[in-house]
């Protein structure tokens, strides 16, 4: 397939793996402990496991699966708000597919749908707006979720709704931004990351400049990476080359998609419609200042939080879950107390087990080759 197969060429992958091994030999730290590289984006986690890249990398590299899956960091209280919205009479609640099974404190959206709530999966916020046009007698709420990758499309949709004078459409905004989150991880006292694979899709919107502080203030290399296997391998090699050379810079491996200055039209729409929230709660990470956005006053009529009464409760994560430690790279998924036993993709306790981009779900689905038998015999029986 043109523009895809070129980035999955086994011969080029072998060359890059050779390059990675050559760089590793140059880095003294590797003799003491494995190098910890964080791939910020859930898309990278997915690619690493889907193509078996983790099994190809030398043991001197430990990949830490970062907070870049927006579904995984959605706090339970916000899921409860979604369910409450969906269960209001007259509402059509629209969402992307992957939040459907994220557990709330009482139920997930999938369970609410089974119980009769009108919840519909859409591929774009524009699909939700289309539903609002088709059902003027109903209130259509779009579950706005995701980093800067998806915020502009929500912004364009709100602007479109305003242009058309559509009044039965609103956004339940859970959009978050990546930079404050990386900063929170870097400020964590137990952090020992050596470098970052920067998120490709987010950077397509924000460009490469916002990552400058990671290199300048924290002296960690950052390489913005694409999502094909060769992208990821090349980005790893580039991070290692920086470490081996004693450099800490922001480099752009994904130059075919990511412009240095980002996407001006997307950024303009984003800032026109949204403003930063002072606090936003993340599952497993607690509240991170200035990490979320909400609709500006001018677009209040499209803001589901202002339009509907919501429980808006803060629900603590289940005690047994160690999602936060996994997100910060302190624990590997299989080191969590409940991984593969009480917490499985069929019965997720923590959000990281829900989405295909979640580190735990990826480990569970793809990454258990070391285990010769199923993680939990009872679990396998349940699935037959």
């Amino acid at each position, binding site marked *: *397939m043109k523009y895809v197969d070129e980035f999955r060429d086994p011969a080029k*992958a072998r060359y890059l793996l050779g390059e990675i091994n050559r760089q590793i030999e140059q880095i003294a730290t590797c003799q003491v402990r494995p190098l910890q590289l964080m791939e910020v984006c859930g898309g990278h986690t997915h690619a690493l496991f889907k193509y078996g*890249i983790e099994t*190809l990398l030398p043991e001197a590299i430990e990949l830490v699966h970062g907070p870049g899956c927006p579904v995984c960091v959605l706090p339970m209280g916000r899921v409860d708000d979604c369910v409450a919205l969906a269960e209001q009479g007259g509402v059509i609640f629209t969402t992307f*597919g992957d939040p459907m099974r994220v557990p709330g404190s009482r139920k997930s959206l999938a369970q609410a749908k089974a119980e009769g709530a009108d919840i519909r999966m859409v591929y774009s916020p524009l699909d939700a707006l289309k539903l609002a046009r088709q059902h003027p007698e109903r209130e259509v709420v779009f579950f706005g979720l995701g*980093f800067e990758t998806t915020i502009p499309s929500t912004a364009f949709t709100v602007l479109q709704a305003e242009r058309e004078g559509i009044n039965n459409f609103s956004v339940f905004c859970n959009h978050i931004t990546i930079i404050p989150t990386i900063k929170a991880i870097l400020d964590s006292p137990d952090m020992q990351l050596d470098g970052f694979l920067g998120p490709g899709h987010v950077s397509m919107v924000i460009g490469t400049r916002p990552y400058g502080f990671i290199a300048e203030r924290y002296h960690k290399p950052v390489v913005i990476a694409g999502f094909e296997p060769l992208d990821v391998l090349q980005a790893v090699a580039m991070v290692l080359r920086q470490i081996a050379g004693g450099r800490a810079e922001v480099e752009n491996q994904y130059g075919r998609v990511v412009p240095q200055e980002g996407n001006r039209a997307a950024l303009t729409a984003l800032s026109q419609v949204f403003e930063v929230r002072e606090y936003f709660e993340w599952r497993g990470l607690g509240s991170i200042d200035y990490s979320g956005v909400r609709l500006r006053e001018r677009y209040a009529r499209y803001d589901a939080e202002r339009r509907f009464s919501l429980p808006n409760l803060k629900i603590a994560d289940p005690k047994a879950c160690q999602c936060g430690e996994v997100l910060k790279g302190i624990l590997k998924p299989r080191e969590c107390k409940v991984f593969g036993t009480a917490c499985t993709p069929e019965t997720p306790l923590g959000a990281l087990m829900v989405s*295909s981009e979640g580190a735990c779900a990826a480990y569970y689905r793809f*990454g258990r080759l070391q285990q*010769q038998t199923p993680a939990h015999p009872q679990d*396998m029986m349940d699935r037959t």
Partner: protein
Amino acid sequence: MNSHQGSRHITLAHGGGGKAMRDLIETLFVRHFHNPWLTPLEDQARIGLGELSPGGNRLAFTTDSFVVDPLFFPGGDIGTLAVNGTVNDLAMSGAQPLYLSCGMILEEGLSITLLEEVVESMGRAADAAGVSIVTGDIKVVPRGAVDKLFINTTGLGVIPEGVHIASHRAQPGDAILVNGFMGDHGAAIVDARGDLALDNPVESDCQPLHGLVAAMLAACPDIHCLRDATRGGVATVLNEFVQAAQVGMRLEEASLPVRETVRGVCEILGLDPLYLANEGKLVAIVPAEAAEAVLAAMRSHPAGREGAIIGEVTAVPEGRVVLATALGGERIVDMLVGEQLPRIC
């Protein structure tokens, strides 16, 4: 359609057991399913045992229900699915499919023209597969109680002597084969729902497979396992095999046949073709020494032109399917959890 009391839509009267129902059965079902077992319109089809016994020494008996949205899609419709799905469930035992029943649940208000298209399509699919729809039933439920039209088909076939296909028979060393491109049906349904607007729409692979199975059995009467890879796709079938036989499996990513357009759909939506539904694809586990002969037999049959050996059965890891990626890495191909959902970014 004048015989339906002037109505062009299904009413509750069509399920009431009276004249409207009788008219519907005679003008639609008997006409399109025409055969000597159905035409007397008794409450049951009567089949002579002597007609069955020359074909083998065991009956194969199966049932399945069909619900699909939309009812019509490129390459088929709910009617062809209802016939071929049950024919294929029989064929996966090595049986020659012979007779089907047809139960329909209709929504009040359904267009009779649409119903006739489905029934006609079932008649054509049955003729093409060489089976007869010999008995049936219709129920009409109030508007909203079903989505337009649901079909149940039950099938009866005869298994030849000496054929013993069972999912627990997979053994280390056996070869794993599929008869062609994976995921065409799943991609066709996604496309038919209008979400993608592809330039080159994918057609469903809906087709009967018993002719192909007969050709494969002629090449190797000792086929160990067969299953049609419908919902859950090839990955789910293989996981069922490894658990039943307590073996492992190793697939080669580079050998998996996937149509370019289907790969494209999967790339766009974050889906995996190994899990996409098929309606005319089977997975076969055969002794290694027979693999090439079975593959040749597959490829010489119209339903298996793109057949491929995709991997082998291994002793370990027991109960797991492992994919060797084209890059040289490995990953587990697990049972599907829930349904495949598109990723947000």
